[in-house]
């Protein structure tokens, strides 16, 4: 089997055993990108030269007997919403086209310090607004399972890169499901850590109170390995949790043993009913979900039904809080200091305001404009209490729902997304249908609790991947890894190998 199909943990072992060099691994992935990314379009920018230089440095460290971390030398892809010194960072937007950041995000600094060569920057919905990656100003990413379908979003690029074996690891960001939903629809693993668990410094903010960066991988253990590298307190992010991370890798290894005796698993009623409610749950997704719950029981877990009555209002609250914060966060893109600058024609002596207006009109896509307008409205004097204020109250109620649910259960579960990957273009003209994709993932962002999406199998209707979401109380990210790894082990046994082995082989499509 070629190197690209191995997990990050396997690659780390091979590097440690001297069976391969980081330069070879990095080159293998660059070759794969060259071979398939023309069809997948997971990357916005590939940094072959930089990645190979970092790989060479890693090999030198290892030769000197001083690897920098467990993943030293294992290459990675980074979502284009993380600033990277000297590498373009566009956030999928024309307004940042050509901008080269003068500094690294803390996550990127930690990757560099840990010795992971950065292959490039991955595609995303513009400023992370979307659930399909179709809102990228640089063209959509395609789902490796079916190139006519969406890879999820906003982090479709990172998920597709990992699913297409273009990278063993990737960094994603999750504001309402942008790591977990792409994970579900591409058959990969994605983790949204506890809010504050991974530094947001250098993550170009969509909604500051919701954004969280996390691992995108093919296995639960790989996510744990990556999470331990990027996580932990950062003095540059005031909202970062000033506590040591729980032992995540240890939890993943423990979970892989398959014993969940004594664990209470809560099935969230509001997010797991076929009938009624919002969202239109696809039967095949529900079937795979129910089977996964059964496997947890088989591993010794006790299943309880929990009700989170305010979750039905989560989507509405989210679409007030997110646009409100985004309208303010995106105000800085005004052509005055960096990025696109459009001087309007037909105006004598255009003012700074004229230039700002013309630049923002040309530089932002429709979905970004839609949310800026929504958010500006929600914060307006006279409407603030009715919209933003009310949404914050709902947010509090959702947090209380979680608190009550975690009294009854150690982890909560639901399907990650209501459906498998839909066709490119299918929901582009229906923003509400698009927003409903994040129905199950949004509550975790509103409450700041951690979540993981693990592949649950292929839906019978369309043979496409579905995911199960596991949620834990804030700061108990280790539970995600224990339960996720146990479920993954049981499913692998059932499938007779990784789910991605069932994905079609990608042919050609050179960049």
């Amino acid at each position, binding site marked *: 089997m070629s190197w690209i199909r191995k997990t990050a943990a396997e690659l780390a072992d091979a590097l440690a055993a001297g069976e391969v060099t980081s330069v070879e691994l990095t080159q293998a992935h660059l070759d794969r990108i060259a071979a398939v990314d023309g069809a997948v379009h997971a990357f916005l920018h590939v940094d072959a030269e930089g990645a190979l230089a970092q790989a060479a440095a890693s090999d030198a460290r290892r030769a000197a007997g001083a690897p920098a971390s467990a993943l030293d030398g294992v290459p990675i892809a980074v979502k284009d919403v993380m600033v990277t010194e000297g590498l373009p960072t566009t956030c999928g937007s024309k307004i940042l086209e050509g901008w080269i950041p003068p500094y690294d995000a803390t996550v990127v600094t930690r990757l560099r310090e840990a010795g992971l060569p950065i292959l490039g920057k991955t595609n995303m919905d513009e400023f992370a607004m979307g659930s399909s990656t179709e809102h990228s100003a640089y063209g959509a990413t395609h789902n490796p399972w079916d190139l006519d379908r969406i890879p999820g979003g906003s982090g479709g690029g990172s998920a597709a890169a990992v699913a297409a074996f273009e990278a063993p690891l990737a960094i994603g960001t999750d504001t309402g499901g942008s790591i977990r939903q792409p994970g579900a629809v591409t058959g990969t693993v994605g983790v949204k850590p506890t809010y504050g668990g991974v530094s947001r410094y250098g993550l170009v903010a969509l909604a500051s109170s919701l954004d969280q960066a996390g691992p995108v991988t093919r296995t639960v253990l790989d996510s744990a390995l990556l999470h331990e590298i990027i996580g932990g307190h950062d003095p540059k992010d*005031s909202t970062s949790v000033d506590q040591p991370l729980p032992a995540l890798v240890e939890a993943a290894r423990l979970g892989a043993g398959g014993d969940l005796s004594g664990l209470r698993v809560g099935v969230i009623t509001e997010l797991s009913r076929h009938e009624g409610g919002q969202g239109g749950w696809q039967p095949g997704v529900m079937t795979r979900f129910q089977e996964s719950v059964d496997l947890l029981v088989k591993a010794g877990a006790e299943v309880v039904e929990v009700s989170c009555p305010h979750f039905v209002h989560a989507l509405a609250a989210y679409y007030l809080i997110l646009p409100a914060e985004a309208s303010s966060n995106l105000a800085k893109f005004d052509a005055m200091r960096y990025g696109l600058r459009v001087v309007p024609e037909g105006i004598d002596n255009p003012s700074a305001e004229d230039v700002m207006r013309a630049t923002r009109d040309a530089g932002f896509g429709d979905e970004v404009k839609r949310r800026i307008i929504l958010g500006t409205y929600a914060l307006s004097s006279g409407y603030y209490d009715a919209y933003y204020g009310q949404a914050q109250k709902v947010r509090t109620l959702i947090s209380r729902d979680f608190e009550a649910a975690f009294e009854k259960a150690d982890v909560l579960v639901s399907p990650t997304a209501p459906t498998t990957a839909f066709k490119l273009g299918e929901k582009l003209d229906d923003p509400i249908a698009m927003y409903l994709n994040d129905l199950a993932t949004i509550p975790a962002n509103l409450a700041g609790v951690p979540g993981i999406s693990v592949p649950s199998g292929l839906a019978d209707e369309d043979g496409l991947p579905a995911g199960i979401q596991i949620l834990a109380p804030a700061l108990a990210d280790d539970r995600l890894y224990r339960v996720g790894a146990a479920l993954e082990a049981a499913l692998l046994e059932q499938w007779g190998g990784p789910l991605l082995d069932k994905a079609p082989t990608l042919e050609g499509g050179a960049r």
Partner: protein
Amino acid sequence: MTDTLVAFDDVLASYDPALGLEVHVELNTNTKMFCGCPAVFGGEPNTQVCPTCLGLPGAMPVVNAKAIESAIRIGLALNCEIAEWCRFARKNYFYPDMPKNFQTSQYDEPICFEGFMDVDVDGEVFRVEIERAHMEEDTGKSLHVGGATGRIHGADYSLVDYNRAGIPLIEIVTKPILGAGEKAPAVARAYVSQLRDLIVALGVSEARMDQGNLRADVNLSLAPKGSGKLGTRTETKNVNSFRSVERAVRYEMQRHAAILDAGGSILQETRHWHEDTGVTTSGREKSDADDYRYFPEPDLVPVAPSREWVDELRGTLPENPLLKRARLQADWGYTDLEMRDVVASGVVGLIEETVAAGASPQSARKWWLSELGRRANDAGLDITDLQVTPVEVATVQALVDNGSLNDKLARQVFDGLLAGEGTPAEIVAARGLAVVSDEGALSAAVDAAIAANPDVADKIRDGKVAAAGALIGAVMKEMRGQADAGRVRELVLEKLS
């Protein structure tokens, strides 16, 4: 366009003024409010910047703990409550000198609130109530190039310097100050002046109005006399000296009255004070249309100063200004009248420092109040902005005390100091100002003066000692002022006795 004004006394016959003052204090922390960039004045443009204060994508703020400490100390000195829990908020508006197009400020949860300051106005104590003191960051500075006025209109292009962006500010807002009547301009001035003294005593800011460390916005409205109502206000900005505060209040009172007398109504707007012409002009219109869309800053966590810390900071406060004044008056031996003049002229702190540098209280009062006060007035400056330091005044006085200078020569040393010619010693040397103590030369000059004025000499010989002045004057003229007049008098009287 010239505003119509009503005579000040006539304003008071028909209206009650209501004042409100918003004072921005630039803190003297080493670093900026939300990043580690140096917060010093005068660097080359855009050299004291980083991703955070430039508002680069992805950058995040971290609160400067020293700025919070300074805010709390200011609040305590103003008798404010200190919030147990408060947050920053975003004030959203677009302007090129705002790196993020929102200002990180405080909105409905200020760190300090409900305080007061007792202000001494001509010996009468006037209580100014403080609504709030909150923390915020400064903006960058726009420089409009080309055009006649340096204002944005008519400029060819504009430059922005972000060195100032993110410098910590404390904004101190009074409640409406009612019942000041004719003293409204003086109350405004005394409040700002005493606030500055307090800030200086706290050591939290350079507090120089000419450099913009301390900036006052003056709100004023008039209501029909005795109505107990509040009229429509204007907010006058760019008021950069104590004197201007007083003048701006007076001007706006007179301008409002003229509009109201003519049956007009006041437009709620921002006005700009013009130091040179002593008038205000209309700035941008301010109305309910200004919607800053405030919301809690999600990139920062709440500020929750512990009560222990607040109590600890309470212990670091300087003496209450009014009590301190009483103490200083006693120490210095000033009469009530002398003290009132000193306070009204805003030189208490300067005299204190001059005395500390070794001068007698009376000599310090003499120089600051008469000589230097006159010069500041002539130059249209606040006395605190004169380029003479208390230590220099004390040095000059020491030279007078040891006979090296007389008062007339000392004034020339001040000329030299104001012209930036160096230290007092350097100026004395360069201008050749030392008193001639060569007895031979002095004696010869006295002899020459007696010889040249025989009539006067005779009068003195006859016992008309008062006539000696003419001879002393002649000698001093001959010596180009560089003689000790007392010694000259002694010599004249000796020789003619």
